[in-house]
């Protein structure tokens, strides 16, 4: 069960666990992590589950797919090299513990 540590914009942290293979967005939403809106429910339609991965883990997690890559240009908070849509990131034992930075705004 990988652990995910969400670092929120106000400096606080939320630690949750979820099964390997779970989508990162789902792990956030089902634990009520503030700041991950996921308006479309995880269909890569809305870009309101934008997160910044930890720089050291970003490469291990893989990059965005083509559609996600285009969508990341239009997120509410600025795009950075480690930006992902959390509905497209799967948890894995290799990323345990996973560090995720939640941006200031989503919509």
């Amino acid at each position, binding site marked *: 069960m990988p652990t995910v540590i969400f670092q929120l914009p106000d400096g606080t942290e939320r630690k949750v666990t979820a099964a390997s293979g779970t989508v990162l967005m789902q792990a956030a939403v089902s634990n*009520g992590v503030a700041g991950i809106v996921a308006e*479309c429910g995880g269909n890569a*339609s809305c*870009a309101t589950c934008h997160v910044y991965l930890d720089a050291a883990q970003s490469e291990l997690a893989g990059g965005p797919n083509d*559609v996600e890559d285009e*969508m990341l240009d*239009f*997120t509410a908070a600025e795009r950075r090299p480690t930006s992902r849509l959390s509905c497209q990131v799967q948890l894995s034992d290799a990323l345990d513990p996973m560090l995720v930075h939640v941006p200031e705004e989503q919509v």
Partner: protein
Amino acid sequence: MSADRPGVAGVVVVGGGQAGFSVVSTLRAGGYDGPVTVFADEPHLPYQRPPLSKKAHTEPDELRVSLVPESFYGERDIELRLGDDVVALDTADRTVRSRAGLSVPYAHLVLATGARNRPLPVPGADLAGVHAVRSLDDALAVGRALTTAQDVVVIGGGFIGLELAQVARARGARVTVVELADRLLSRAVSPQLAEHLRRRHEESGVHVHTGTAVQAIEGTDRVRQVVTSAGTLPADLVVYGIGAVPRDELARDAGLAVDDGVLVDEQLRSVSDPRVSAVGDCARHPHPHAPGLVRLESVQNATDQGALVGRRLAGQPPAPYANLPWFWSDQGAVKLQIAGLRAPSDDVRLVAGDTPGRLAAYAFRGGRLAAVETLDWPAEHLAARRLLERETPVLADELTDTTLGGLARARRAAEVRA
């Protein structure tokens, strides 16, 4: 009444859908510490509705569609009354009474009652094998029926009908869509884009009959065929989606102003009673993007209106409701997205994307961009939302040799330089 603080009037929310959930989660996030009670007439935890018609679940899958786990409500001291609905509202006493007989006082009441399917007004609509899809239980019933159905007739060529047509097609059924209007999605998208979408459905093997009326559904024990103005179609499963009507009778019976939805002001308060608000599918409200009053049926609208009322009731400074409306529909492999509200008189320009299948329809009003519909082009949809939310308008002649994505990037670069 809230179990631990009997008799103390707090916030009562009628409805456990996306709008009601948004109200209570925003209330607690905003620091409201009074009693909060939600009446949800379905037995399930508040859940996402969009996947129901896009997937037609084959097994109970509540964990995957629930908005948050049950512990969310307990941790926030939100009393969630599943399987109970408010049946009477007394605005003078500021009390609601539930079907189960509970009487709860309120300081503020939020109506988040949603909408119900418009009933199918033809003989045979009550036969076994005829389904609408609005609830999780509806979707489970259709999912089960699709495991054996071979001939599926979909009545209604709107979002729900077309989503279900693709689900049935993916399960291997022969599928026919019957639509009364002369084109698909006549209320929701431009004729130009709808024509392309029709082609995509037909290419996937779905038969589409527009300008066709359903006259009767026939069968003995269960549905066997559908009689239409263009002939008779064999059917062992019929699903229909011909629009929805707001569930506003509680408000009407209580004497609140109602006209195809609970009438509210720009703060989403009932125009008849400032102690009552209405949000989501059941609310008719002013909006800066639309003339007169509008009632919007979408997740975005439900979520944003619920959040506005939740913030207001938590004591934050009120702001008028002005969120940009947006919609999406996954019809099989085709992703349809809409930003803004198109008017029938808008000038529509179709723009092809850089890869096959990508398409956008820009709707201009008085030379300014007012709404954008896209097929399989989420980035262009997001760019449209960014640009339509800004106060600087997008003019038609700015888009002669660039897409919205290109324009958004150019404007952002100009901002950075300035």
